């Protein structure tokens, strides 16, 4: 009974919200998903640190793509994404501003090749399974470029990232591009398969961020500052050897794994301290800056017709809340 009431009341509330303009203070709604750098938010949720910091937030757990959809539909104030996907989401109407860098991918995204292929150069003329137009594609192009090759040197097969392990095992492709847990599954599923390239070879290609809608940022700037403070409390807790296991236990339970299983995924994600993150907010070219990295993603998205018009990177980044 209470359930039905709740649903009705939430429907009525939604209707009222649509009618009234900006009424009472609502909690900040943040969508997050299954990536170690974002699962870490769970520590603060569990320990009620947001309450202590005096900011009301509601975290909503999603599948990654569903979280961006909900943000685009205006149902969330902020969402966790990669800097490249922030541009894609913004290009289709859901403008957003990256105010916090959680981490950069440091090996969790990888190119996995079947036995017999030992380097990126060996991929010449081979088939590679990758989700075209997304972050894995970007990693592959980066790997080819570093080895003096072009996209046309390999044959791309469009495969959803979560199916890459099976596709590599089927033998229909010679290599795949995926991130954890799929990349690890592929290595386990195909004995003798090797990681021939990974985001650890190009740190800063993929940043994982918190992106906020411009409206919410303008209206609740102080609240978002508090959210950032809480994040660095999480980072301290996570980095402290004394409390790290407790942090990992909370994160593992969020995704339904045992802490030992989850530890595997931690190494490939470089969670950044405040000082480190500040460095990446400096405006320079290349992968060592969020600006530079996003510019490279933007070029990539246009070259691959993910969207048509170059995005103004400056509009997407605001490092001034630190």
């Amino acid at each position: 009974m209470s359930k039905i009431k709740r649903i009705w009341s939430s429907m009525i509330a939604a209707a009222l919200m649509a009618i009234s303009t900006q009424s009472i203070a609502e909690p900040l709604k943040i969508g997050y998903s299954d990536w170690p750098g974002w699962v870490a938010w769970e520590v603060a949720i569990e320990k009620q640190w947001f309450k202590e910091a005096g900011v009301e937030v509601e975290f909503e757990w999603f599948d990654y793509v569903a979280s961006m959809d909900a943000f685009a539909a205006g149902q969330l104030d902020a969402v966790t994404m990669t800097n490249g996907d922030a541009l894609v989401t913004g290009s289709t109407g859901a403008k957003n501003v990256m105010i916090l860098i959680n981490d950069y991918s440091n090996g969790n995204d990888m190119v996995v090749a079947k036995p017999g292929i030992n380097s990126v150069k060996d991929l010449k003329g081979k088939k590679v399974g990758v989700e075209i137009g997304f972050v894995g594609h970007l990693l592959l192009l980066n790997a080819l470029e570093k080895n003096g090759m072009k996209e046309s040197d390999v044959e791309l097969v469009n495969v959803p990232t979560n199916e890459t392990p099976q596709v590599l095992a089927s033998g229909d492709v010679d290599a795949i591009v995926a991130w954890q847990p799929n990349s690890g599954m592929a290595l386990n599923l195909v004995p003798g398969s090797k990681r021939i390239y990974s985001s650890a070879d190009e740190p800063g290609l993929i940043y994982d961020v918190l992106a906020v809608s411009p409206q919410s940022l303008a209206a609740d700037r102080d609240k978002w500052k508090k959210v950032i403070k809480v994040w660095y409390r999480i980072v301290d807790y996570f980095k402290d050897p004394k409390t790290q296991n407790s942090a990992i236990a909370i994160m593992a339970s969020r995704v339904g794994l045992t802490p030992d299983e989850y530890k595997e995924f931690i190494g490939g994600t470089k969670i950044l301290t405040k000082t480190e993150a500040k460095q990446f907010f400096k405006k320079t070219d290349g992968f060592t800056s969020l600006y530079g990295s996003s510019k490279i993603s933007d070029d990539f998205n246009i070259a691959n017709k993910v969207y048509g018009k170059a995005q103004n990177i400056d509009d997407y980044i605001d490092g001034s809340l630190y």
Partner: protein
Amino acid sequence: MQDQWLTVNQELTLRQRRLLTLGSFLLPLAIWCMLSYVPFIWHPMVEVEDKGSVSYFKESMLVEKELFYQELEKAQGEERAVPTGTPANPIYLPAPHEVIEALYSAFTTEPIRRNEQWLHESLADSISVILLGFLLSSLIGVPLGILAGTFSAVSRLTEPFIEFFRYLPAPAFGALAVAILGIHEAPKIAIIFIGTFFQQVLVVANTTRKLDPALLEAAMTLGAKRISMLFRVVIPGIASDLYRDMRILLGWAWTYLIVAEMIGSSSGITWFITQQARYKNFDNVFAAILIIGVIGLTTDMILAQLGKRLFPWQRGTKV
């Protein structure tokens, strides 16, 4: 008297029927047990116990049988340490006892985090989504179906459009439902509604049309007005068939559950299934699928028994 098992067009005895029902469940279970526990029937993989001198083998890694023996022979030939292992099935076919264990531990695992739910609480969420979607659909769909089945004018006005709409796949409305209704239960209920409603109107209208015209003629001869026709002849006349339709449609609503729960924030039993599948914990996935099957079957059996009580005159036929 000897039981006759294969006589054409003759109902079996109660004992025979019970035995066969049991058999219909035991047969697949027996096949599953054989595949799982008898090594030489399938077991196309080898689970590595000791990696020996093979550099890329890891303990408890699953390797294809052929590859395992290649490496074994190679190691033997070069007089290196040989790997050892036991035959195993692929990761996507867990053995029955593993699934039973997963089933038990899924219900008994205490939530670790404050905002985490017990499995039975997630299940209750899922069931409430289905029931609300089905209820909303029935509140509008059943009256509309009866009217369309009784009056040609209503039928002509509604059915062509509904015929068109029922071909639109409910999941396609996911993003739209989230944009309008938010991220919690409401868009999920909407998907169940869309998946059920349009079929429901057509099925109910058809059932209504099948009512014996002699009943309607008799009522008209006796001077029944439109309203009393509807409530005293049509509805009582179709009640038992309508009940059966609703049972089938409820099963239909269940099939939309997984799709519906994929929309918006993750919740319910679907969250459990997709998350466990992502990390290849297929024993948990099988357990969850089993739970859905048991809930569906139990509800249906209860409704069938209830139907026999409600419509005793239908006992001879299949309700």
